[in-house]
């Protein structure tokens, strides 16, 4: 019982990271029908900027580490990576929109390699650990519930993930610009006829997606304590899988897909073995996709003529 609860909690935590990253894949796919292969690397960039640069800065300046500082780091990193996302769109994708669907994908792969190697050159190819001093400064509070243990850090991370996801959901569903984003995902030309500047919506998507991914990056770093420059591939692939699982292009789908993937992995780790978690997770994915090729929520409402 305790172990089940523990694994569910771990799965929820990891799943919320996957979900945050998956949102970036799904949103870009939604408006552009493009798989942004560089998205995983933006997530990784977030982890590096947050944990290596900012955290050491905080430690060196001697600022007291508290929740406020942590949240400030999140905001700064999310903004910075959002800017990188916009630059990426402008340089790597925008010139290619009229070239068909394959050239932007090749460009995305190129951008991914560029970001990965850029980070490797800047920060080195070795694992980077999260500054010990920063970690020690955070209160090590721990609770026990039904045999499962969870830390204050875990609670904070879950809260941040769910707040970000709820905010995105409300924005997309209940605001004018969010609705315009959904309209653009359905039909660029008709959206233009409404007076919607499609390019601005695309830019917005390239701010929000990478910013959420960056938040996921910091949390993965905090949770595991160490990061490496190929993090974008391993986590990006998982998150991309989660987006497909939920139905690519569908925002709630990415959230559900991410959480589900995290839970399955955690349960597989807890009750089978860690070595089998990927095999089990992807096996379930294949089964779901055989049964529902458009993903869990990827339902297309047919347009009547």
């Amino acid at each position, binding site marked *: 019982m305790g172990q089940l609860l523990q694994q569910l909690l771990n799965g929820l935590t990891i799943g919320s990271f996957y979900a945050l990253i998956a949102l970036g894949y799904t949103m870009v796919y939604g408006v552009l029908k493009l798989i942004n292969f560089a998205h995983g690397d933006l997530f990784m960039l977030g982890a590096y900027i947050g944990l290596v640069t900012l955290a050491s800065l905080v430690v060196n300046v001697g600022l007291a580490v508290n929740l406020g500082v942590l949240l400030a780091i999140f905001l700064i990193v999310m903004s910075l990576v959002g800017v990188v996302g916009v630059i990426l769109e402008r340089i790597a994708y925008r010139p290619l929109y009229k070239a068909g669907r394959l050239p932007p994908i090749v460009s995305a792969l190129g951008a991914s390699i560029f970001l990965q190697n850029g980070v490797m050159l800047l920060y080195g190819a070795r694992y980077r650990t999260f500054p010990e001093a920063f970690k020690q400064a955070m209160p090590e509070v721990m609770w026990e519930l039904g045999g499962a243990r969870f830390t204050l850090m875990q609670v904070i991370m879950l809260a941040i993930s769910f707040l970000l996801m709820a905010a995105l959901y409300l924005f997309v569903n209940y605001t004018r610009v969010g*609705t*315009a984003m959904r309209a653009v995902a*359905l039909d660029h030309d008709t959206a233009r006829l409404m*007076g919607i500047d499609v390019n601005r919506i695309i830019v917005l998507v390239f701010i929000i997606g990478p910013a959420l991914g960056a938040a996921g990056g910091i949390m993965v770093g905090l949770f595991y304590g160490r990061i490496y420059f190929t993090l974008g591939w391993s986590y990006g692939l998982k998150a991309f899988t989660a987006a497909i699982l939920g139905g690519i292009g569908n925002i709630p789908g990415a959230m559900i897909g991410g959480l589900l993937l995290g839970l399955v992995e955690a349960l597989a780790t807890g009750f089978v073995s860690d070595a089998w978690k990927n095999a089990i997770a992807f096996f379930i994915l294949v089964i779901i996709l055989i049964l529902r090729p458009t993903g869990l929520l990827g339902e297309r*409402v*047919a*347009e*009547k003529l």
Partner: protein
Amino acid sequence: MALLEVRNLHAYYGHVHALRGISLTVEEGEIVTLIGANGAGKTTTLRSISGLLRPREGEIVFDGEVINGVPAHQIVYRGICQAPEGRKIFSTLTVQENLNMGAYSLGNDRAAIEANRRRVFALFPRLEERKNQIAGTLSGGEQQMLAIGRALMARPRLLMLDEPSLGLAPMLVRAIFQTIREINEQGVTVLLVEQNARAALRLADRGYVLETGRIVLSGPARELLGDEKVRKAYLGES
């Protein structure tokens, strides 16, 4: 001065020379129809006016200003709205959200949006009954109402309708055309593209007949209805 004046418009789709020198005028308050067979260039003409397609040559003047080259998303701010061919409603959005998108150009001017919504619901009470329904689940006729209602949400001076009768039962076509007349009587100028030439010419003040990218005939709708060539080619009479 005409509200809309198109002069010698040439447009291409890839290498296809789709418009070969179209000239037409629409006066304020009129209903003007463009009729012609599939592929004659009717939709291309509308897409050029609304900025979705950049004409290679020629000029489009609306309300005294040249508007070719203005990006599509800014055309609506000039007072031109289009209900595109095939309706193109946002199928996963609700009826209400579709209408809100029609009013996107009004920004956060809630009073104006609400007033326009009331006007649209008065024309199409069906839409009010179904305002919370997902638009893709509406019937074909209701989707057409939504497409027209959405275009009216920005309170255009010129409403361009592309094949509003497409795929609708004759009774619904009559109802839609009746509503177009009502919209026109409220002061909205209408440019109507139709394959259903008879219904369109009965409704319109004037008409233009398009053939392979050229205007081959124009005049008062009543005269076109009586024209022998039109009767043979477009009204299915021998």
